[in-house]
């Protein structure tokens, strides 16, 4: 794989457009085009042994409809970064701006509401609700964010299950289907309220290679249909599905280095 150049801010770029340079004109263009902008984000965790730094000043942007992979080794800070972006956790400093809204300034409840409309989250361990069947695992997201009329919930959920290819199992509980299928349901759930962006942390981390491709194909086609996709992975092959790869090492975005 041919890797492109590294710009001044340390944003590693593969793709059609480059941005993030400290060029003012480009900045404005970038800002206009970016659905998501991460600016100087720092985060450390408090542990018994003191503070563990996880992110040490990360900045980059993601454009509407872009398929970006956040790539790095275990412990690099990928999960931390995606949790900050999806508003699940808060940065110590820096900003995360989504469509002009500073996510880190929102309260926990406001972030929930924001996620309900703008961002679908996909977890490594699928995190489906065990007592609900597949359809209900999707309609619960619609129900809580109240974006759609109640009468459309089940119909749309069924369509989404068709879209991810498991409509046959619609009435089964999560425990009765395979891991790959569960992750498809999780993606369908992330799409429940038709958000412009999907954020996934190691979505294939728990799946075998064949299943993996199926999931990545779904992300790929979602990106083609205009969704912005952010996928965290430690797997180079997975990263290669993306339009662009952001390489993270020790909490910083750096140039990719082959180990």
């Amino acid at each position: 794989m041919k890797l492109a150049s590294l710009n001044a801010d340390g944003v590693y770029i593969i793709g059609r457009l480059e941005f993030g340079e400290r060029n003012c004109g480009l900045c404005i263009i970038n800002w206009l085009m970016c659905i998501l902008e991460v600016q100087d984000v720092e985060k450390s965790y408090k542990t018994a042994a003191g503070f563990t730094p996880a992110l040490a000043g990360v900045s980059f942007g993601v454009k509407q409809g872009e398929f970006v992979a956040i790539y790095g080794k275990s412990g690099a800070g990928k999960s931390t970064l995606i949790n900050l972006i999806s508003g699940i956790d808060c940065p110590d400093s820096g900003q995360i701006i989504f469509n002009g809204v500073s996510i880190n300034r929102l309260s926990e409840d406001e972030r929930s509401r924001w996620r309900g409309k703008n961002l679908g989250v996909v977890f490594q361990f699928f995190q489906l609700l065990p007592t609900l069947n597949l359809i209900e695992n999707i309609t619960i997201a619609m129900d809580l964010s109240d974006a759609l009329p109640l009468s459309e919930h089940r119909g749309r959920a069924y369509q989404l299950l068709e879209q991810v290819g498991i409509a046959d199992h619609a009435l089964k509980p999560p425990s009765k289907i395979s891991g790959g299928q569960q992750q498809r349901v999780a993606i369908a759930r992330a799409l429940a309220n038709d958000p412009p962006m999907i954020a996934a942390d190691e979505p294939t981390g728990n799946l075998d290679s064949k299943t993996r491709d199926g999931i990545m194909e779904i992300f790929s086609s979602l990106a083609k249909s205009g969704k912005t996709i952010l996928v965290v992975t430690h797997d180079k092959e997975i990263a290669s599905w993306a339009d662009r790869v952001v390489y993270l090492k020790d909490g910083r975005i750096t140039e990719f280095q082959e180990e």
Partner: protein
Amino acid sequence: MTELRTRWIKILKDIWQNKSRSALVILSIAVGIAAVGMINAAKLIVERDLYRAYQAGSPASLEIYVSPFDKELAGAVESMREVEKAEPRRAVDALIYRRSKEKWEDITLVAVPNLNAVEVSKFVLVKGSTNATTRSILLERQSAEAMGVGVGDKVVIRMPDDRQYTLQVAGIVHDVYIQPFNLMNEATGYVRMETLQWMGEVPYYNKLNLVVAQKPYDRAHVLEVGHTVRDRVIEPAGFQVFRVQIPGVGSDPGQHWAHNQIQGFLLILQIMGVMAILLSAGLIVNTISAVLMQQIRQIGILRAVGGVRVQLILMYLVYVLILSVVALLLALPLGWLGAWGISSLAARFLNFDITEMLLPSRVILWQVALGLFMPALVALYPILEGTRISVYNAVYQSGIGTEHKEDGVRRLLMKLKGVSPPVLLSLRNTFRRKSRLVFTLVTLTLAGAMFISVFSTRASLTQQIQDIGRYFTFDVALSVPGGTGKLTAVREALRVPGVEVAEGWANANGVILHDDGGESKAIEVVGIPYDAITIDPVLLAGRWLQKGDAQYIVVNDDLLESESGLSVGSHVRLKVGDVERWYTVVGIASKHLSGPRVYMSIQEFWRLTGRHNQVDVIRVRASAARNSDVITQNAIAAALEERYKNAGLSSLKSTTRNAIFADFTQVFDIILIVLVIMAVVLSIVGGLGLSGVMGLNVLERTREIGVLRAIGASNASIFKLVIVEGVTVALMSWASGAVLSVPSGLALAAAVIHAVLRADLNFRYSYVGLAIWLAIVVLIGIFSSLAPARSAARLTVREVLEYE
């Protein structure tokens, strides 16, 4: 049909798929609510039906016992302005033959001027007719039932002079004013005065039933009217007044005779009801905490997909509400059933009819309000706490304990390598979550204290009865109506085979005259041999009677209640009939259900009453050393009755010491059974609570258990770990329950004894109860940890790792 929102579907499915947990919450709510319904409904039903029946028959506000008199005296009393009605009655104690048991039972024959038109404390005709002839009788319904006779049947009556008469049952009546057969084992029959005359009695009355004209419920006023009647009409007419009293056992005028006892018992039940509610509230808090704890991850997910905290709070409140509604549906019929049980029992013993066995709407409203709001209210705290967690912590940190988890595990591992006793490990677990531990402890402690208290109450009652029994240390006692010479009475008694000791006692009614010219209420003056062994008094102060005591008396504690100025050394002026004499109080004896009493030597008694050498009761013992067994008592009783009958002294039934005890215990046992049932309910609730907590602890330690498994801990050792923890908590609760059971037992025993005996308390702690509860609580500890232990042992390493 509109679709159900998915959030409600989730709740319904959560409830359905965790059936045992849902059942636990439902049960704990239902038990509390049902208890409240049961107790309040029973209270309302008893008050409605018993008290209404009581009021309906124009109850006597006052009873005046007078020397034999005729109708004219009643007429004169009734013509007084202060008196609304005055009805004379005559009561004769006799025996009635009970064919089914082939024995004689006590019966009181009551004569009134007109059986067809009783005016005060009216009975109600149930069957047959009140038109009794000279040879017929009206039987009280419980008496008729016990004798197994109906209208038209014949009954055999044995009079005090031992002659037998056969009477036909003309009618069966219901009299709510007499102490019923089911409670007292004394029958009641109503006859015409002519009938009594035919049976050899003099045609006079001996009691006036009065309804006071004004302020009929004012105790002081009613008594004042009584004294006015006595002083202005009865005594000037030449009759002697023995006693002026308000009917009942310490009741106020217009109140049912057992009003205080009923209210006391209901109060005890109310306290139990409050405890049941408190416990079920605690259990709800506990279980809801467990649910939220278990669903932390789900809470995180719900918030990750767009849910806000208010929505979650609402979801869990609805969860509680649904369980509450189901519990309520269960509690309403359950409460009804309980109310039915208690009020039927009351109806049977107090001889009244339940007009309609519906839960009063007030009670239903109470239950609904309590059932719907209480659980939601108490669940609010754990729900608010549980939903406060941040999304990040909820999704990623659940299953990881908050404090020094890593250290704990590491230390744990090290210990395990050194083959640590699992007890130590369990102990550490037990103390990990203090607030949860406290709750379980409180529940089980309450249950334990309650349980031991019930046992202590029983032990105290036994003690109390034994203390009271010290005043009845005869084997058999027999009354001699009208009295007889002491020498004859004792000689005849000693001729009964097996009798070693015979004492003649005498009694009279008297009053204490006050310096201000007033007088005390009626007191019983008892003359006894100074060396009597059929009494073993409990002295609260001073000394007992001694040889040569002339004008010395011992009074009992009951007398001090009305004559509060009295103490050892006091001088009192006692009046019996027309004679007044001064006495010095030398001792105070404890209460023994006798009413105010004065004991003096029989010689002094004879001097005071002028009834020289006369005795009224013969009290015998088979052995001077001790009381004899039941069989001996019964044998002597029969022989003594026979001997006295043949000698023409008395044809009354004798009393054995054993019979006195048997009568007491029966009433107590009913109350104690109810109390034991409550304690069992509490321990079930406590066990359920412990089970919930153990489940929660296991859940919290999923990771730790996984680590233990990973390093090779066997199923059995993990099983044991959980059980030891459960038993440890149980034992701790036992210890604190033991401590609490001292004051709570004291309170319960005091309440019960006061309700039943109207006497002060002799508390006795029950170590038997303590030991039994120890066994029960250990079993509760084991059984309530079984399910959590099984699920802990079932956890696989993989599941545990996935849990992260």
